[in-house]
């Protein structure tokens, strides 16, 4: 069997001390999957509690700890790293034609920081949990809570640096290590969106770090920074916190937008419509994202005029997002559409992200926000973006690049079934929550008035379908490692440097370093139709791909 990055060395130290970005990506894949199921388990428990209006499954302290665990783990240990640390790490050097990232040792350090941060957070769990909510609002978190806030704050602090170092690596690599001929406007849109994400991470995460550090100091030293009895301002915490945490949601979303562009292009076998607009829209979202944090604070006593500014700019963020959705739709028009599993995730993403984005406008509209702030409407909105959007994009990307990463294809039938289950389960879980929110059910409640029960039951039922939907890929992807069909370089007939090299790639990515001579997404839609018409459907996966000579192999 040909030497690749997986079989180059089988020892445990060759994995734990690796500099190979692909191996680090796999290390991350295993870690974040573990955290995903921890965060998911917490959600299962509190959705079970919410089947009845009374508090009858867990005591209130434990309920509060469960939603805090869910938030902290999902945001910091799953959503933020997921696509960048797994797919970004694996693909970025290959897509730009490099041997590795600029700083391989720093990349490994990132993973270890992630693990250390994770250990601190799990310590918080072992110390009995944290009950502040992932937002750590003061003075509850700094003065009043009797739970393991310090451990959790330390965990978040450390994992923030993991994020920062990865972002730094990505930015430098994209600037300095592109292959000859790989100009900025020949880059895949996945690179553009990871670049924009990395900008946000580098500018925003340090502010989170200092904020949680201040909360930690306040708790540990019993001094007042956000405690009004000692002269502090609790709302200052909110400004500092949301200054990071709003851009953070774009950290969680932008990479997915990049993945979707790749999937739509490949499975329409067509260039992305309006490439430059889509590329720049990622940057626009990143920049505007830093200017809107006050839309989380319309009812906190923030100045009304500041509120107007935040509301206005929040509306503007909708525009680049809309541009992406319309460009993707225009890409589908007159494409050659293949309904593969990754494509199903991408199409599902478009629908759910559109709904999520539109409901964001409700929250940006000040007078409506007064009513629905801190209700289930907000919960529904962000889950539409994060789960209906970003997670579906992540799963689509995992399925798409799985054959590249492992050399094996997953079972397509199971893939499609899971995608449908996830889509259905997701909508059943979260659509009722829009209605619950407008009816007035607040967030973070373990008991609620009887009249909210029907919608809560629907939501919990959906959650069980969704949970099953997530377990299936865990099963069949692992199964495919041993029993999946082996694939060649380009099973999807896709266009991109990663499809020019072996599956799995060799340790230094290419046998011959590429020189790029053609534009991005130079798909030939007519050719694929021709090939399809002439081929036996059974051979779709193994038929030779159209000749995409991206690289001048006479290097």
């Amino acid at each position, binding site marked *: 069997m040909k030497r690749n990055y997986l079989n180059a060395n089988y020892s445990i130290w060759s994995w734990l001390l690796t500099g190979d970005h692909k191996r680090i990506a796999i290390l991350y894949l295993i870690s974040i999957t573990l955290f995903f199921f921890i965060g998911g388990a917490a959600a299962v428990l509190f959705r079970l509690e919410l089947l009845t209006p009374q508090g009858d499954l867990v005591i209130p302290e434990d309920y509060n700890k469960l939603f805090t665990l869910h938030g902290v783990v999902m945001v910091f240990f799953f959503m933020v790293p997921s696509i960048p640390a797994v797919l970004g790490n694996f693909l970025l050097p290959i897509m730009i034609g490099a041997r590795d990232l600029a700083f391989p040792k720093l990349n490994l350090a990132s993973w270890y920081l992630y693990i250390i941060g994770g250990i601190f957070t799990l310590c918080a769990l072992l110390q009995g949990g944290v009950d502040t909510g992932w937002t750590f609002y003061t003075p509850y978190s700094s003065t009043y809570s009797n739970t393991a806030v310090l451990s959790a704050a330390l965990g978040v602090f450390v994992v923030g640096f993991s994020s920062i170092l990865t972002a730094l690596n990505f*930015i*430098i690599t994209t600037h300095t*290590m592109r292959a000859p001929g790989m100009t900025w406007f020949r880059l895949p849109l996945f690179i553009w969106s990871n670049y924009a994400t990395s900008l946000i991470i580098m500018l925003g995460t340090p502010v989170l770090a200092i904020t949680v550090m201040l909360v930690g100091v306040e708790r540990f030293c*019993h*001094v007042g*920074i956000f405690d009004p009895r*000692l002269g502090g*301002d609790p709302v200052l915490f909110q400004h500092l916190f949301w200054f990071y945490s709003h851009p953070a949601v774009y950290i969680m979303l932008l990479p997915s937008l990049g993945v979707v562009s790749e999937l739509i292009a490949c499975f329409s076998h067509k260039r992305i419509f309006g490439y430059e607009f889509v590329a720049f829209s990622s940057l626009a979202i990143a920049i505007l994202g830093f200017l809107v944090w006050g839309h989380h604070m319309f009812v906190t006593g923030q100045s009304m005029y500041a509120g107007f500014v935040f509301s206005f700019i929040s509306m503007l963020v909708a525009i680049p997002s809309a541009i992406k959705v319309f460009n993707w739709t225009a890409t589908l028009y007159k494409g050659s559409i293949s309904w593969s599993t990754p494509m199903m995730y991408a199409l599902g993403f478009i629908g759910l992200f559109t709904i999520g984005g539109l409901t964001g406008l409700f929250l940006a509209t000040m007078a409506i926000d007064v009513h629905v702030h801190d209700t289930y409407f907000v919960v529904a909105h962000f889950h539409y973006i994060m789960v209906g959007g970003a997670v579906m994009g992540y799963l689509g990307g995992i399925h798409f690049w799985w054959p590249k990463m492992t050399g094996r294809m997953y079972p397509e039938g199971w893939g499609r079934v899971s995608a449908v289950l996830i889509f259905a389960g997701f909508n059943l879980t979260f659509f009722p929550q829009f209605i619950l929110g407008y009816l007035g059910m607040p967030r973070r409640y373990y008991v609620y008035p009887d009249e909210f029960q029907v919608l809560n039951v629907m939501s919990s039922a959906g959650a069980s379908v969704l949970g099953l939907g997530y377990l299936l890929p865990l099963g069949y992807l692992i199964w495919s490692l041993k029993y999946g069909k082996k694939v060649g370089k380009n099973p999807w007939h896709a266009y991109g440097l990663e499809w020019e090299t072996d599956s799995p790639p060799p340790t*230094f990515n290419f046998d011959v*370093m590429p020189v790029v001579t053609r534009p991005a997404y130079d798909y030939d839609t007519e050719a694929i139709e021709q090939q399809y018409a002439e081929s036996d459907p059974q051979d779709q996966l193994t038929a030779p791909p159209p000749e995409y000579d991206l690289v001048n192999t006479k290097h």
Partner: protein
Amino acid sequence: MSAHADSPPFLRHQFDDVLQQRTSAALGMWAFLLTEVMFFGGLFTAYTVYRYWYYPEWDQASRQLDVYLGAFNTFVLLTSSLTMAFAVDSAATGKQKALRRNILLTLFFGIVFVGIKGIEYTTKWEHHLVPGSHFEWHGMSGLRVPAIELFYVFYFIMTGLHAFHMLIGFGLLFTLWIQARMGKFSPEYYTPVEMIGLYWHFVDIIWVFLFPLLYLMDRS
């Protein structure tokens, strides 16, 4: 794979050539320093808010800081940046002995700085000016005046975080000195000296902001 049959030993495998490596290192260090600016920036923002709210109390609190020690420390740290700049120059011109000497001098001045900060901290402790249950302030009603104590919270956090960055700098400088002794640097390759120089200058600049903000509030 690696077409580096004749490439210099300091060229890492992921880079195509030395220029790419140097550019990446420089860009990387500047990007990292940008994140440090944002890190301290959050702290400076909080400081600004409370200084605006509590100016009279903070003015009074600031007068208890020893402005002479602070000024001397500023001079010491600026001198250390000078010797660091000399170190970079020595590396670039291949003067190995001067390189080692300048790194040690930088380290020395840095240690003096931290030592003086230690003296200041000890004095504050003796005067009951460390925030917490030990804190006492005379001259206003009550011993724990919130606004005054808040000044000292920021004093200790800001200078403490700065001192922590200096300690990291000591580790970096010491490693650099060891590497210089092993003859790792030459006019063709002295990137680590440059990069650590950048870091050291940055730490210096942070202090240049901290000193007037904390010590020189209204010394008329």
